[in-house]
Protein backbone atom coordinates (compact mmCIF):
# COMPACT_ATOMS: atom_id res chain seq x y z
CA UNK A 1 0.00 0.00 0.00
CA UNK A 2 1.36 3.41 -0.86
CA UNK A 3 1.72 5.98 1.92
CA UNK A 4 -0.97 8.19 0.44
CA UNK A 5 -3.48 5.35 0.29
CA UNK A 6 -2.65 4.47 3.86
CA UNK A 7 -3.63 7.96 4.98
CA UNK A 8 -6.67 8.11 2.80
CA UNK A 9 -7.99 4.86 4.29
CA UNK A 10 -7.98 6.69 7.62
CA UNK A 11 -9.54 9.86 6.27
CA UNK A 12 -12.99 9.46 7.82
CA UNK A 13 -14.64 11.66 10.44
CA UNK A 14 -14.28 9.31 13.40
CA UNK A 15 -10.57 8.76 12.77
CA UNK A 16 -10.07 12.50 12.46
CA UNK A 17 -11.85 12.98 15.79
CA UNK A 18 -9.47 10.45 17.33
CA UNK A 19 -6.40 12.27 15.99
CA UNK A 20 -7.70 15.68 17.10
CA UNK A 21 -8.42 14.29 20.57
CA UNK A 22 -4.90 12.87 20.85
CA UNK A 23 -3.03 15.86 19.48
CA UNK A 24 -5.01 18.38 21.55
CA UNK A 25 -4.39 16.22 24.61
CA UNK A 26 -0.62 16.23 24.06
CA UNK A 27 -0.54 20.00 23.45
CA UNK A 28 -2.58 20.63 26.59
CA UNK A 29 -0.27 18.40 28.60
CA UNK A 30 2.65 20.54 27.38
CA UNK A 31 0.81 23.76 28.16
CA UNK A 32 -0.47 22.97 31.65
CA UNK A 33 2.96 23.05 33.38
CA UNK A 34 3.52 26.50 31.84
CA UNK A 35 0.13 27.61 33.08
CA UNK A 36 0.82 26.42 36.63
CA UNK A 37 4.22 28.08 36.54
CA UNK A 38 2.56 31.41 35.66
CA UNK A 39 0.03 30.95 38.44
CA UNK A 40 2.87 30.24 40.84
CA UNK A 41 4.47 33.52 39.82
CA UNK A 42 1.25 35.40 40.46
CA UNK A 43 1.19 34.08 44.01
CA UNK A 44 4.87 34.50 44.88
CA UNK A 45 6.41 37.27 42.81
CA UNK A 46 3.88 39.79 41.53
CA UNK A 47 6.52 41.93 39.72
CA UNK A 48 7.72 38.99 37.67
CA UNK A 49 4.09 38.24 36.85
CA UNK A 50 3.61 41.79 35.61
CA UNK A 51 6.47 41.54 33.15
CA UNK A 52 5.16 38.15 32.05
CA UNK A 53 1.73 39.64 31.50
CA UNK A 54 3.22 42.45 29.40
CA UNK A 55 5.01 39.82 27.34
CA UNK A 56 1.83 37.83 26.98
CA UNK A 57 -0.01 40.91 25.66
CA UNK A 58 1.81 40.69 22.32
CA UNK A 59 -0.36 39.74 19.33
CA UNK A 60 1.56 36.56 18.57
CA UNK A 61 1.22 35.35 22.15
CA UNK A 62 -2.47 36.26 22.11
CA UNK A 63 -2.85 34.26 18.95
CA UNK A 64 -1.14 31.27 20.56
CA UNK A 65 -3.40 31.57 23.61
CA UNK A 66 -6.47 31.48 21.40
CA UNK A 67 -5.02 28.32 19.91
CA UNK A 68 -4.71 26.83 23.37
CA UNK A 69 -8.30 27.66 24.24
CA UNK A 70 -9.28 26.04 20.98
CA UNK A 71 -7.26 22.94 21.94
CA UNK A 72 -9.10 22.84 25.26
CA UNK A 73 -12.46 23.17 23.51
CA UNK A 74 -11.60 20.49 20.98
CA UNK A 75 -10.29 18.14 23.65
CA UNK A 76 -13.42 18.65 25.70
CA UNK A 77 -15.67 18.24 22.66
CA UNK A 78 -13.93 15.03 21.59
CA UNK A 79 -14.08 13.72 25.12
CA UNK A 80 -17.81 14.40 25.33
CA UNK A 81 -18.28 12.71 21.98
CA UNK A 82 -16.49 9.61 23.25
CA UNK A 83 -18.54 9.51 26.43
CA UNK A 84 -21.75 9.80 24.42
CA UNK A 85 -20.70 7.11 21.97
CA UNK A 86 -19.72 4.70 24.67
CA UNK A 87 -22.21 5.37 27.44
CA UNK A 88 -25.39 6.40 25.67
CA UNK A 89 -25.61 3.63 23.05
CA UNK A 90 -26.78 5.99 20.35
CA UNK A 91 -26.31 4.96 16.78
CA UNK A 92 -25.30 6.33 13.41
CA UNK A 93 -26.28 9.85 12.46
CA UNK A 94 -27.83 10.68 15.82
CA UNK A 95 -24.54 10.33 17.57
CA UNK A 96 -22.62 12.13 14.85
CA UNK A 97 -25.01 15.04 14.98
CA UNK A 98 -25.11 15.17 18.74
CA UNK A 99 -21.36 14.98 18.99
CA UNK A 100 -20.88 17.70 16.38
CA UNK A 101 -23.40 19.88 18.16
CA UNK A 102 -21.76 19.38 21.51
CA UNK A 103 -18.26 19.95 20.21
CA UNK A 104 -19.35 22.99 18.21
CA UNK A 105 -21.26 24.41 21.15
CA UNK A 106 -18.43 23.96 23.57
CA UNK A 107 -15.93 25.46 21.15
CA UNK A 108 -18.17 28.46 20.54
CA UNK A 109 -18.77 28.97 24.25
CA UNK A 110 -15.09 28.84 25.10
CA UNK A 111 -14.09 31.16 22.29
CA UNK A 112 -16.75 33.59 23.48
CA UNK A 113 -15.41 33.37 27.01
CA UNK A 114 -11.97 34.19 25.67
CA UNK A 115 -13.30 37.26 23.87
CA UNK A 116 -14.80 38.52 27.13
CA UNK A 117 -11.67 37.94 29.15
Amino acid at each position, binding site marked *: *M*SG*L*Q*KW*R*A*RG*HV*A*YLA*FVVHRVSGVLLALFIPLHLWTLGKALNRPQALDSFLVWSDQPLVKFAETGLVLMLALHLGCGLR*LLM*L*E*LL*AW*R*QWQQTLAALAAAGGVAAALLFALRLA
Partner: protein
Amino acid sequence: MSQTLQVDVWRGGADGHYQTFEVPHREHQTVLDVVTYIQRELDPSLSYRYACRVGMCGSCAMSVNGKARWTCRTHVKRVVEHGRLRLAPLDNLPRIKDLATDMAPFFDKIGQARGTFVPTRTRHDPFAAIAPDSPARASIDEAIECIGCGVCYASCDTVAWNPDYLGPAALNRAWTLMQDSRDAAHAERLLAVAGDAGCHACHTHMSCTERCPKQLSPTASIAGLKRLALGAALKGEL
Protein backbone atom coordinates in the same frame (compact mmCIF):
# COMPACT_ATOMS: atom_id res chain seq x y z
CA MET B 1 -14.20 4.18 -19.25
CA SER B 2 -10.71 3.17 -20.31
CA GLN B 3 -10.52 -0.13 -22.12
CA THR B 4 -7.82 -1.76 -20.01
CA LEU B 5 -7.08 -1.72 -16.33
CA GLN B 6 -3.58 -1.61 -14.92
CA VAL B 7 -3.72 -3.97 -11.97
CA ASP B 8 -0.87 -4.13 -9.45
CA VAL B 9 -1.08 -7.42 -7.57
CA TRP B 10 0.96 -8.39 -4.53
CA ARG B 11 3.06 -11.47 -5.27
CA GLY B 12 4.85 -13.56 -2.67
CA GLY B 13 4.56 -13.75 1.11
CA ALA B 14 5.73 -11.17 3.65
CA ASP B 15 8.65 -10.26 1.36
CA GLY B 16 7.12 -9.75 -2.00
CA HIS B 17 6.52 -7.15 -4.65
CA TYR B 18 3.75 -5.85 -6.87
CA GLN B 19 3.36 -7.31 -10.33
CA THR B 20 1.37 -5.36 -12.89
CA PHE B 21 -1.18 -7.01 -15.18
CA GLU B 22 -3.31 -5.55 -17.93
CA VAL B 23 -6.92 -6.64 -17.70
CA PRO B 24 -9.79 -5.69 -20.03
CA HIS B 25 -12.24 -3.35 -18.31
CA ARG B 26 -15.82 -4.54 -18.62
CA GLU B 27 -19.18 -3.20 -17.60
CA HIS B 28 -20.38 -4.45 -14.18
CA GLN B 29 -17.00 -6.05 -13.50
CA THR B 30 -16.19 -6.78 -9.85
CA VAL B 31 -12.71 -6.71 -8.34
CA LEU B 32 -13.00 -10.46 -7.87
CA ASP B 33 -13.73 -10.79 -11.62
CA VAL B 34 -10.45 -8.98 -12.28
CA VAL B 35 -8.48 -11.31 -10.01
CA THR B 36 -10.14 -14.35 -11.54
CA TYR B 37 -9.33 -13.08 -15.05
CA ILE B 38 -5.67 -12.78 -14.10
CA GLN B 39 -5.60 -16.26 -12.61
CA ARG B 40 -7.45 -17.90 -15.54
CA GLU B 41 -5.94 -15.99 -18.48
CA LEU B 42 -2.61 -14.51 -17.45
CA ASP B 43 -0.98 -16.33 -14.56
CA PRO B 44 -2.45 -19.56 -13.16
CA SER B 45 0.01 -19.49 -10.24
CA LEU B 46 -1.82 -16.55 -8.61
CA SER B 47 -3.22 -17.51 -5.18
CA TYR B 48 -6.38 -15.94 -3.78
CA ARG B 49 -9.57 -17.03 -2.05
CA TYR B 50 -13.26 -16.90 -2.76
CA ALA B 51 -16.23 -19.23 -2.57
CA CYS B 52 -19.77 -17.82 -2.83
CA ARG B 53 -19.25 -14.74 -5.08
CA VAL B 54 -22.44 -13.25 -3.62
CA GLY B 55 -21.30 -11.69 -0.36
CA MET B 56 -22.15 -14.51 1.98
CA CYS B 57 -19.05 -16.54 2.76
CA GLY B 58 -16.64 -13.76 3.68
CA SER B 59 -13.60 -15.37 2.04
CA CYS B 60 -12.78 -12.90 -0.75
CA ALA B 61 -11.65 -9.85 1.24
CA MET B 62 -8.53 -8.03 0.08
CA SER B 63 -7.00 -4.62 0.23
CA VAL B 64 -8.14 -2.64 -2.83
CA ASN B 65 -6.35 0.67 -3.41
CA GLY B 66 -5.49 0.74 0.28
CA LYS B 67 -8.90 -0.12 1.74
CA ALA B 68 -10.06 -3.56 2.87
CA ARG B 69 -13.10 -4.67 0.88
CA TRP B 70 -15.14 -7.72 -0.06
CA THR B 71 -14.05 -8.09 -3.64
CA CYS B 72 -17.01 -10.11 -4.98
CA ARG B 73 -19.42 -7.25 -4.27
CA THR B 74 -17.10 -4.37 -5.10
CA HIS B 75 -17.58 -2.98 -8.59
CA VAL B 76 -14.39 -1.92 -10.31
CA LYS B 77 -15.88 1.34 -11.51
CA ARG B 78 -16.52 2.42 -7.91
CA VAL B 79 -12.94 1.95 -6.75
CA VAL B 80 -10.69 2.30 -9.81
CA GLU B 81 -8.39 5.33 -9.79
CA HIS B 82 -6.99 6.60 -13.09
CA GLY B 83 -7.45 3.16 -14.61
CA ARG B 84 -5.45 1.47 -11.82
CA LEU B 85 -6.19 -1.05 -9.10
CA ARG B 86 -3.71 -2.01 -6.40
CA LEU B 87 -4.55 -5.35 -4.81
CA ALA B 88 -2.87 -6.67 -1.68
CA PRO B 89 -3.66 -9.28 0.95
CA LEU B 90 -5.56 -8.02 4.01
CA ASP B 91 -3.50 -6.02 6.50
CA ASN B 92 -2.87 -7.21 10.07
CA LEU B 93 -2.74 -10.89 9.10
CA PRO B 94 0.23 -13.08 8.14
CA ARG B 95 0.66 -13.28 4.38
CA ILE B 96 0.77 -16.81 2.99
CA LYS B 97 1.14 -16.18 -0.72
CA ASP B 98 -0.06 -13.48 -3.09
CA LEU B 99 -3.55 -12.40 -2.04
CA ALA B 100 -4.12 -15.17 0.53
CA THR B 101 -3.59 -14.41 4.21
CA ASP B 102 -3.52 -16.77 7.14
CA MET B 103 -6.88 -16.07 8.79
CA ALA B 104 -6.10 -18.28 11.82
CA PRO B 105 -5.31 -15.41 14.24
CA PHE B 106 -8.62 -13.77 13.30
CA PHE B 107 -10.70 -16.89 13.96
CA ASP B 108 -8.66 -17.87 17.03
CA LYS B 109 -9.58 -14.55 18.60
CA ILE B 110 -13.29 -15.22 18.09
CA GLY B 111 -12.64 -18.32 20.17
CA GLN B 112 -10.70 -16.36 22.79
CA ALA B 113 -13.59 -13.91 23.06
CA ARG B 114 -15.82 -16.93 23.85
CA GLY B 115 -17.58 -16.51 20.54
CA THR B 116 -19.38 -19.83 20.74
CA PHE B 117 -22.88 -20.23 22.08
CA VAL B 118 -23.08 -22.20 25.33
CA PRO B 119 -26.58 -23.61 25.72
CA THR B 120 -28.55 -23.49 28.96
CA ARG B 121 -30.94 -26.20 27.74
CA THR B 122 -30.66 -29.53 26.01
CA ARG B 123 -32.44 -30.62 22.86
CA HIS B 124 -34.96 -32.44 25.04
CA ASP B 125 -36.21 -29.17 26.49
CA PRO B 126 -38.84 -27.07 24.74
CA PHE B 127 -37.70 -24.16 22.50
CA ALA B 128 -36.77 -20.94 24.25
CA ALA B 129 -39.30 -18.21 23.57
CA ILE B 130 -37.58 -14.95 22.55
CA ALA B 131 -39.89 -12.07 21.65
CA PRO B 132 -38.66 -10.77 18.26
CA ASP B 133 -39.25 -7.18 19.34
CA SER B 134 -37.57 -7.44 22.73
CA PRO B 135 -34.74 -4.89 23.18
CA ALA B 136 -32.10 -7.61 23.55
CA ARG B 137 -33.24 -9.38 20.38
CA ALA B 138 -33.32 -6.06 18.47
CA SER B 139 -29.81 -5.26 19.60
CA ILE B 140 -28.60 -8.73 18.56
CA ASP B 141 -30.18 -8.15 15.13
CA GLU B 142 -28.02 -5.09 14.61
CA ALA B 143 -24.84 -7.12 15.05
CA ILE B 144 -25.61 -10.68 14.00
CA GLU B 145 -25.06 -10.59 10.23
CA CYS B 146 -21.25 -10.86 10.42
CA ILE B 147 -19.81 -13.01 7.63
CA GLY B 148 -16.36 -13.28 9.19
CA CYS B 149 -14.62 -11.55 6.30
CA GLY B 150 -11.92 -9.88 8.40
CA VAL B 151 -12.35 -6.48 6.70
CA CYS B 152 -12.85 -4.79 10.08
CA TYR B 153 -9.84 -6.58 11.57
CA ALA B 154 -7.63 -5.51 8.68
CA SER B 155 -8.83 -1.90 8.98
CA CYS B 156 -8.30 -1.57 12.74
CA ASP B 157 -5.19 0.31 13.84
CA THR B 158 -5.55 -1.01 17.37
CA VAL B 159 -4.97 -4.52 15.98
CA ALA B 160 -1.88 -3.20 14.18
CA TRP B 161 -0.56 -1.60 17.39
CA ASN B 162 -1.42 -4.45 19.75
CA PRO B 163 -1.32 -7.87 18.08
CA ASP B 164 -3.10 -9.39 21.08
CA TYR B 165 -6.14 -7.14 20.71
CA LEU B 166 -9.18 -9.34 20.11
CA GLY B 167 -10.41 -7.03 17.37
CA PRO B 168 -13.78 -5.79 16.18
CA ALA B 169 -15.31 -8.99 14.80
CA ALA B 170 -14.57 -11.15 17.86
CA LEU B 171 -15.89 -8.46 20.22
CA ASN B 172 -18.94 -7.91 18.04
CA ARG B 173 -19.66 -11.64 18.22
CA ALA B 174 -19.19 -11.65 21.98
CA TRP B 175 -21.67 -8.76 22.27
CA THR B 176 -24.39 -10.70 20.44
CA LEU B 177 -23.95 -13.64 22.82
CA MET B 178 -23.93 -11.40 25.89
CA GLN B 179 -27.41 -10.28 24.82
CA ASP B 180 -28.63 -13.83 24.29
CA SER B 181 -30.75 -14.94 27.23
CA ARG B 182 -30.31 -18.62 26.24
CA ASP B 183 -26.54 -18.47 26.70
CA ALA B 184 -24.93 -19.87 29.84
CA ALA B 185 -21.45 -18.31 29.66
CA HIS B 186 -22.07 -14.59 30.26
CA ALA B 187 -19.72 -14.31 33.23
CA GLU B 188 -16.75 -16.08 31.62
CA ARG B 189 -17.27 -14.21 28.36
CA LEU B 190 -17.33 -10.84 30.07
CA LEU B 191 -14.10 -11.77 31.81
CA ALA B 192 -12.58 -12.84 28.48
CA VAL B 193 -13.45 -9.58 26.71
CA ALA B 194 -12.78 -7.14 29.56
CA GLY B 195 -9.04 -7.76 29.77
CA ASP B 196 -6.19 -5.57 28.50
CA ALA B 197 -6.52 -6.84 24.95
CA GLY B 198 -10.31 -6.71 25.03
CA CYS B 199 -13.00 -4.08 24.63
CA HIS B 200 -11.22 -1.38 26.63
CA ALA B 201 -8.33 -1.39 24.17
CA CYS B 202 -10.63 -0.03 21.43
CA HIS B 203 -9.95 3.62 20.64
CA THR B 204 -13.26 4.19 18.85
CA HIS B 205 -11.54 4.98 15.55
CA MET B 206 -14.59 3.44 13.88
CA SER B 207 -12.58 2.28 10.88
CA CYS B 208 -14.23 -1.12 11.41
CA THR B 209 -17.69 0.44 11.22
CA GLU B 210 -16.67 2.56 8.25
CA ARG B 211 -15.55 -0.50 6.27
CA CYS B 212 -17.77 -3.41 7.37
CA PRO B 213 -19.42 -4.57 4.13
CA LYS B 214 -22.46 -5.78 6.09
CA GLN B 215 -22.85 -2.30 7.55
CA LEU B 216 -22.54 -3.54 11.08
CA SER B 217 -21.11 -1.34 13.79
CA PRO B 218 -18.55 -3.30 15.78
CA THR B 219 -17.78 0.02 17.49
CA ALA B 220 -21.31 0.13 18.91
CA SER B 221 -21.02 -3.51 20.03
CA ILE B 222 -17.69 -2.81 21.71
CA ALA B 223 -19.21 0.21 23.44
CA GLY B 224 -21.94 -2.14 24.69
CA LEU B 225 -19.31 -4.47 26.11
CA LYS B 226 -17.57 -1.51 27.76
CA ARG B 227 -20.86 -0.60 29.46
CA LEU B 228 -21.41 -4.19 30.59
CA ALA B 229 -17.86 -4.36 31.95
CA LEU B 230 -18.26 -1.03 33.73
CA GLY B 231 -21.56 -2.15 35.26
CA ALA B 232 -20.06 -5.45 36.43
CA ALA B 233 -17.00 -3.68 37.86
CA LEU B 234 -19.22 -1.25 39.78
CA LYS B 235 -21.14 -4.18 41.22
CA GLY B 236 -17.86 -5.84 42.15
CA GLU B 237 -18.50 -8.78 39.83
CA LEU B 238 -15.46 -8.30 37.62
